[in-house]
């Protein structure tokens, strides 16, 4: 298994992803700078979390025009699998690989806490190892995670089963208006989506921070299955 992790100026979860692929899963990993164009023939490409380009202009906006993104788009069009986590999700939305956008959290606060998310679809590359409707515990750490799109897009996402994760309580129940359960105010409690083919996934929670009991006793290792 080969994983390529893209490092933008301001990425800060690149090391976590490298650790989980390289050390925990024994994969061959390459971390490449955003100006590169050669993805090194990976099985997976990861756009990690962080604050690429200091979130200048809009979150993910400047990363969208980084040279590496042309290669990422080509990789996706050829069926390659890409996951964007947190800022990576914001970048995928900005560059049009996923629909919608991540607005500022509805309560204006930066959220750094654990959330429960329900697996809505196992049709994507990154969720096929999960049981549908199972509940995972993952950390979130973001100021702009409030998923938004127009009603037509929302209808299409829901109709085509492209919602991959939804915020929920520990028992798996959803409540869009509860800031405890849907903390950033996302439409339909959306925490993660995929493209129509299922080879591109973006999510705000950090599964790569729920891979070792040593550092994440609450989340355990529930996130690991996403990367295998």
């Amino acid at each position, binding site marked *: 298994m080969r994983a390529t992790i893209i490092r933008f100026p301001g990425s800060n979860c690149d090391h976590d992803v490298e650790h989980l692929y390289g050390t925990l899963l024994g994969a061959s990993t390459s971390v490449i700078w955003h100006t590169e164009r050669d993805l090194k023939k990976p099985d997976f490409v990861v756009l990690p979390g962080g604050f690429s380009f200091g979130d200048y202009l809009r979150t993910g906006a400047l990363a969208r025009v980084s040279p590496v993104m042309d290669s990422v788009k080509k990789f996706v069009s050829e069926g390659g699998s890409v996951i964007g986590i947190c800022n990576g999700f914001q970048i995928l939305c900005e560059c049009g690989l996923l629909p919608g956008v991540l*607005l500022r*959290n509805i309560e204006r606060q930066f959220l750094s806490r654990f959330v429960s998310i329900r697996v809505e679809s196992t049709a994507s590359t990154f969720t096929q190892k999960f049981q549908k409707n199972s509940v995972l515990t993952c950390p979130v750490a973001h100021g702009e995670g409030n998923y*938004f799109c127009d009603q037509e897009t929302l209808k299409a996402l829901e109709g085509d089963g492209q919602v991959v994760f939804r915020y929920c309580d520990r028992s798996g129940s959803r409540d869009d208006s509860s800031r405890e359960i849907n903390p950033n105010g996302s439409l339909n409690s959306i925490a993660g989506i995929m493209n129509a083919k299922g080879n591109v996934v973006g999510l705000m929670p950090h599964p790569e921070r729920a891979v070792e009991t040593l550092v994440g006793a609450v989340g355990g290792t529930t996130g690991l299955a996403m990367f295998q």
Partner: protein
Amino acid sequence: MKMQVFVRLKTGVLDVQGKAVEKGLHDIGFGDVGNLRVGKLIEFEVEETDSNRAKDKVKQMCEKLLANTVIESYEIKSL
């Protein structure tokens, strides 16, 4: 030619920043302020003498980077 781009959140898109600024104004005594929205002004020079050609070029810049048309509208002015 000097260009100005005004980027605004579209109607109906929640502007939490605007709400915070509005509350700040209320807190310092400007209680009659309402519907405050925060936008962006981007100014730059382009090497172009024809205003229409310059605007066409800037329109492409807006579509590709300066605005996210899912949530934002833009207005271009040449000075």
